[in-house]
């Protein structure tokens, strides 16, 4: 990097005030946003900024003057300048007052601008929509009431994902001319369900069962996203046994995921003297569930 004094065009003995004035004068000339068409201004602006960064700090300047540090103290890189966005379509800030007089008097220009205004697309509008778990799985139609009045019907397709953004063509802001309207972008957030959880295309469910249902096997009425079905728990099931209900998960292309039902044995919550008496008397020799942990 060049000598910071040279970059700012100040003498080595310049005062802080002179340095600041020199920087302001150059920065005003070189700031990329004040030179929207000049790509080279950005590099020169950065040089000037880091030269100023160095010389405006007395300590850094002293160390530079005595040769302790060199001039490469880099300016933190800027992500983007405003000019990088200003050219994009539908800039809300842009003004045509700089050429309105030409457009009003010159037929050639007026025609071009008329066409441009006709084509200009309306801007996109953003919304967020909370959806119940089952509506996201099964599909539904939801209505958003718009702040500016009116409403918007949103079709929730079955199998919608958390955070997905739905684009409703032409439901955004109208065009300022005769162009097409912008789009409405609806971001979906799915409310959690009290007992279903979603894992990709599958849905998981913890299903409480009784001792008897697990040990003896049973036909158990089990909730699924599209209504209860009968689940057959085989004899000798246990807490943690996972049973698959095929095709009862989340709809996807060419079918549906599965519902994974994990059994959970629930002891009675009320004390039961009959059960206590039975368990006290019941002493099988080979029933040691923690054997693997403790050996």
């Amino acid at each position: 990097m060049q000598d910071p004094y040279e970059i700012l065009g100040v003498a080595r003995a310049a005062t802080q005030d002179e340095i600041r004035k020199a920087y302001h004068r150059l920065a005003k000339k070189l700031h990329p946003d004040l030179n929207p068409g000049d790509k080279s201004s950005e590099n020169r602006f950065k040089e000037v900024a880091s030269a100023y960064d160095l010389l405006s700090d007395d300590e850094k300047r002293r160390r530079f003057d005595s040769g302790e540090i060199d001039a490469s103290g880099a300016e933190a890189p800027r992500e983007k300048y405003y000019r990088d966005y200003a050219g994009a379509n539908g800039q809300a800030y842009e003004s045509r007052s700089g050429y309105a007089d030409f457009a009003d008097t010159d037929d050639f220009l007026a025609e071009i601008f008329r066409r441009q205004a006709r084509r200009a697309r309306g801007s996109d509008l953003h919304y967020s929509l909370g959806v119940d778990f089952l509506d996201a799985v099964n599909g539904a139609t939801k209505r958003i009431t718009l702040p500016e009045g009116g409403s918007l019907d949103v079709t929730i397709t079955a199998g919608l994902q958390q955070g997905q953004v739905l684009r409703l063509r032409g439901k955004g802001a109208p065009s300022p001319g005769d162009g097409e309207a912008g789009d409405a972008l609806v971001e979906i957030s799915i409310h959690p369900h009290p007992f279903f959880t979603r894992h990709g295309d599958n849905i998981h469910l913890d299903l409480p069962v009784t001792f008897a249902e697990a040990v003896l096997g049973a036909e158990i009425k089990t909730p699924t996203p599209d209504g209860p079905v009968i689940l057959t728990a085989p004899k000798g099931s246990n807490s943690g046994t996972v049973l698959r209900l095929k095709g009862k998960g989340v709809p996807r292309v060419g079918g549906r995921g599965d519902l994974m039902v994990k059994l959970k044995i629930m002891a009675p919550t009320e004390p039961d003297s009959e059960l206590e008496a039975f368990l006290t008397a019941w002493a099988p020799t080979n029933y040691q569930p923690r054997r693997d942990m403790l050996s």
Partner: protein
Amino acid sequence: MIINRLEFLARADLDGRTLDAWIEEEWLLPSRPEDELAFSEADLARARLIRDLTDRLGVNAEGVGVALHLLDQIHGLRRAMAEVLATIHRQSHRSD
């Protein structure tokens, strides 16, 4: 990409009162779906430009309004010029 008010304040390194003043001055025009302000990346870059003008270039509040007004016209002109050039190119191709 939508940026909400809190995130915008953090990323632009601004305090709430300054932001309100800038919106009041119409230096920034965030959109307002559902009562809440929604900012774009362009709004963020514009906020950084305003900060540069005031903090680094020594422009005072009146000057910022003037600078933004002229800049918005320049961007309008740049787009108009691009449009005119594109039209001329199309027509010269047609007459070839």
